[in-house]
Structures are given as C-alpha cells and as structure tokens.
C-alpha cells in the first residue's frame, strides 16, 4: 500500500520520503531522562501502523511531538514529504492516552466544538457531530452531559472528537484501553474504514492480539529508539526462534530437541522454543521416533513473544 521513494539527503544518510507521515531521528530529553533517542516512524497514506513498546519507551512523547505538543531537541517530522506545518497539525485527529473531554459539555456540542477548532464551519461541524455521534453509537445521547456517560461511552465520544473533521492522519494513543468488545469492534471497523479512505492511522496498544489483527505494519520501540519495523508476519519470520508444538496421541515422552527450551503446556502437549536455524524435518522425524502424535506444528512465535524478544534484546 505504501508509495514512496528513496532519496539521498547527504552522503551515507538516507531516509525514506513517502506520502503520509515521516518522523526521522526524533530526540528529546527531559532533564537527565532521554525520552527519544533518534526514533523513526513512518506511516504511509492508507496505512495502519501499530506503534508498540513497553511503558516509557517514548510512544506518547512521539505522538505529542507529531501533534506539536512537545518541542523536540532534534529530528524532523514531515507530511507528504514537506515539514509538518501548523495547518497539517490542525488536521490531525488525536486521541490522547489520558483522554480529554469537558465533563460539563454536551456530547453533540463537544464533538462540534472540536470540529470548529479543526476548521469546520458552524453548520458543517454540527452535521459532522451528529454523524459521528451516531457512528460511535451515541446518536440518542447527543444532548447528555459528558459527565453523565460511562467511561466506555466517554471513550466513544473521544473517538468521535478525533474523527469529526475526518482527518487524513489519525494518531491514537491506547485507543482500545477500557473498551468493551462491542466498542472494540466498532473502533476497529472505523479505523479500517478510514484507512480504506486513504487516511494514515498510527495507534499504540498493549493488546497485541488486536494489533496483530489490525495493523498493516508495526513499529516497535524501546528506550526511545526504533527497534524493528515491518508487518506482523515479517517480524514473526525474523524471529531467531521457532515454536515446536506436539499433541501426543498417547503417553507424553520425556524427549526434548537439542538446544530447545520447554514451555508450559497442558497435559499431553509439548511446546518447545527452538532456534530458527533448526531443521524442522529432522525435528518432526525425531518426535515421531519418540512417540505417536495427533498433530505437530513448527512455526514462528506469536507477536507477543516477538515483542518480548525485541524489547529484551
């Protein structure tokens, strides 16, 4: 989906300039604390990027820097190949981690108010507010005060606030935190629709199963640095380990492959972490010699394991 080209900035220093968002070499210190240490992030047009990292990795600081809320010590942020302008930033739809709504405003007028600040006309903002209130399932609560809503419904309003001006770039910090399954499904659908419409979406989350299902590409960061970038399947493939899972049809043997680590598994099932360089055919043959099995699989680890491997490294 990503369109782009590689250009030479200076000898030995190449960056990818693409349609959409490009953050390169971001650095930021808060006193002695290094929050960002040359972090890179790219989100192409019509691309949904999962932005992952442990707590304190620099995700929120990066998102705030994209919004212009945090002044950077170094690095560049560009949109469609040009430095991010004030007008570009006003067009961003943002959902902060801590959320942020006026408790004593009504649902409809709050959504419309942010639409006005984002540049919509009074009538346009009112129309879009109605549309998005309906879309996030709060059409019948437009006149309710925000403080009268449940936490989950307040998050729906927060999403509508981020979407009211139908931005070309959506920055969502932990958008799924605290949502019920219905709201998660709604949010996932909305994000997919925006991406299908050509918007760029970057979101952070600790719910890796959701990230795995939704994101076209992942950027995993820790200690203010970008560790890896790629699709879920690419990152899994790049893992230095594989998982060998055997469901025995009979007594479970005490056998373990060479250089393997036995993982917790239910009775009658053996799960081993083995080096990616292992010969899968040989492992299956060895297992067949040790006992009979109902099924056997050899595959890259899941995203959660990949994430832990990368962060630990």
């Amino acid at each position, binding site marked *: 989906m990503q369109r782009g080209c590689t250009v030479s900035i200076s000898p030995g220093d190449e960056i990818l300039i693409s349609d959409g968002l490009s953050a390169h070499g971001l650095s930021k210190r808060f006193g002695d604390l290094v929050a960002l240490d040359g972090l890179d992030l790219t989100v192409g047009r019509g691309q949904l990027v999962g932005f992952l990292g442990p707590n304190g990795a620099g995700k929120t600081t990066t998102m705030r820097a994209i*919004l212009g809320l945090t002044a950077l010590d170094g690095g560049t942020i560009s949109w469609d190949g040009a430095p991010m302008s004030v007008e570009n930033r*006003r067009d961003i739809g*943002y959902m902060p981690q801590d959320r942020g709504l*006026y*408790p004593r405003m009504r649902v409809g007028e709050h959504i419309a108010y*942010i639409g006005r*600040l984002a540049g919509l006309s009074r009538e346009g903002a009112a129309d879009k507010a109605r549309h998005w209130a309906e879309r996030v399932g709060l059409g019948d609560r437009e006149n309710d005060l925000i403080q009268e809503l449940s936490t989950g419904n307040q998050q729906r309003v927060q999403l509508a606030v981020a979407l009211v001006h139908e931005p070309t770039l959506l920055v969502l910090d932990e958008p799924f935190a605290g949502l019920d399954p219905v709201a998660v499904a709604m949010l996932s659908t909305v994000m997919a629709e925006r991406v299908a419409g050509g918007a760029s979406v970057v979101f952070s989350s600790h719910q890796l199963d959701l990230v795995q299902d939704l994101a076209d590409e992942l950027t995993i960061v820790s200690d203010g640095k970008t560790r890896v970038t790629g699709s879920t399947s690419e990152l899994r493939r790049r893992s230095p380990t594989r998982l060998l899972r055997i469901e025995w049809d009979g007594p479970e043997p005490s056998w373990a492959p060479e250089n393997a680590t036995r993982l917790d598994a239910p009775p009658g099932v053996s799960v081993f972490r083995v080096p990616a360089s292992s010969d899968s055919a040989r492992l299956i043959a060895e297992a067949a010699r040790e006992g009979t099995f109902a099924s056997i699989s050899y595959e890259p680890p899941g995203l959660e394991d990949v994430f832990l491997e990368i962060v630990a490294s």
Partner: protein
Amino acid sequence: MNGPNLVFEVAYRELRTHARTTAFKAITAFLVAAAIVGPVVVALWPDEDGARQVSIGLADGADRSLEETIVALAQGGLDVEFVPLSGRSQADTEAALASGDIDVIVDAPDTLVWDSQVDAPLAAILGAALQQRALLVRGEAYDLSENDVRQLLTPVDIADRIVDMTESSDFILAIAALGLFAGFLIPQVFGQLTLVSVVEEKSTGVVEVLLGHIHPRTLLLGKVLGLTLLAIGQILVFLAGLGAAMFATDSIDVSGSVWSFVPVLAVSLIGGLVFFNTLFALLGSLISRQEDASQVILPVVAPLMVGFIVGQLAIGGRADTTIIRVLTFVPPITPMLLPIRVARDAVAPWEVAAALSLLVLASWAMIRAAARVYEFTLLHSGSRVSWKKAWGFVRARPGSE
C-alpha cells in the same frame, strides 16, 4: 478558521458553558433580586426624620396661639402633639418629662423646660415660634398688623453654591462604593472561575486535544475574553435590575456628572477583569490540581486587600492623600481607587488618563507574559511550577523547552 475566529470560538464556549451552570444562574438571580429589592425596601422604609413625634406640654403661662405657629414651622420635620398642663402640679409635669411622655414644656412666654438635655431641632422650632410671637407683640407697638410682621419675617430663598466638590453627591459616592466592592470582589470571583477552568482542562487532559488544533495563546485569549464577557454580562444584568428599581421608586437623580463618571468606572472594571482573569489563568497553568489553588492565589489577593482597605479610606473623604494618589497608578488597584477619586472629584484629568493607560498596558503585558508561561506549563502535570521557573518561561523564547 483564522486566529481571531478561533479566539471567539473558545470565548463562546466558555461563555455558554459557564453561563448555564446552576451556580452562575443562582448567583445572578440573587444579585438581580438584591438589586431590585434593595431600593424598594429603602423607598418603603418609614422616613424616621419626617415621622418623629414630639409632645409639647403647654403650661398655664404659655400662649395657646403658639400652637398654630409651631405646627407651621414643624411641618415636614416633626409630628407635633400638644399637651395642656393646666391644673397639673410641677412635680407631675416634671415626672412626665422624665418618663418621656412629654419632650418639652413651654412655660410662660419665653421659657422652655427640658428633662436632661436640649433637643436642638425641637428647640430651634420652638425658639423661632416664640421669637415670631414676640415680634408680633412688638409690631403692635409700631402699628404694624400681624400680616405686616409676617411679611417682614418671610425668609429669603437662599441658593446653594458648593465650592468644595470633594463632598460629592450621595448617589455618585454610592456608585463609587459599589464600584469599590465590585473592583474587589468581581476580579476574585471571575479570576478564580478562570483558574478553575484552566485546571479542569489540565486535569481532564482535554488541553492536549485542544492544543492539537489551536495555539496556547489562542486558548488563553479565548478563555479570558469569554469569562470577561460573562462578568460584564452579570454586572449589566445587576445594574439593569438596580436601575429599574431605582427609577421605579423614584430614588435616582441622574445628574450630568454621573455620565462622566460611568465611563471611568466601566473602563476600570473591564481593565481589572482582563488583568486579573489573565493573571488567574496563568496561575492555573502552574498547578495541576484544584487543591493547590490556594498556594498560588494568596499572593495575588494581597494587593486586592490593600486596594479595598485604601478604597474605604478614600470613600471616607481622604481621596486626595499622597498614598492614595500613588496607589491609583498601581494597575491591580486602579479599578478600585480611580472611580472613588473621580466621584470625590479628587483627581486631575491627566491622572485619570495616565492610570487607565497604565491599566491597559499592564493588562496587555499580563496577556503577553501569561501566553509565554501557558506554552510551557499547560501540559505540565504533577507538582506546582515554581515562581522562579514561571519567570524563566516569561523570558524564554517560545518553543525553546
């Protein structure tokens, strides 16, 4: 939308959101009720001076024809009752004096008997009546009729011309006193409303969403404008109620000098509101929790207290002292002192112009300083930002943190 439109959008939200709170509606309703009820109650209250009743005892020697003269002279001032004392003993009449049943005894042609002290207004009326009676008697000796004597005694109309205007009209002084109270109270009430609004935006995190779309300066200006307009609206509603009640009860006498005084009061109040609303917005940006508000508010309330105390001295007639003259030029205090000095006519035109100019300049400087601090502190959470650090932000280049 451009910058000014965004400021108005923010201001409109502030105005609308705060104006519909129950607390604001209740306070406004109370103020309007007080404005209407106050003049009505004063108008309906019995006029004690006009209604004072006195009992005048007439001894045997007193001329009964005095009654008519006394009543004529006391008209509008005293409600006179005459008590004939013929046949009563001296002890009895003195006991009536002591008990207060009788205020004074007219004894013989030219003697007034009092209990323990002379009642000056009553003595003046009785004295004038006795003098008149005596002159009528003397006039007869010169063949002058009673009518001739009365014509000679008809008082000449005396016009008043006041040279020392420091004793201004009660009405203007009352408005100035109201202005002092307003200049003391309103900046605090609406300033704290501004502070609470800023802290709410920080604590709920909504400021992060807002700053994604608008500049901190725009947010500050919109907030100050909205809450200043809200305050002006409340003041106007109060004054409308007060004016209507005063006109209805015929207890207002708007002279030409009022219209030269009102603009000074209005500019002072609006300038004070802008100055303090901006200052309180700055203070709100230094803290993250409502509980910390008192730490930053206390140092600001001190000059307001000074202004209020000094303002009371000015109302009391010391509007021309050096200390009051100097303090009039201190912007946070100007809104309280300047209207009083104008009401007392104790200020030169250049002083009015200079004080108001300084107030406008100070408000402008406060907006500039607060906008700088705002840029650095709006996203700050946790402990209070120190005064030293805040001053550093005022001097820092925007976006340099």
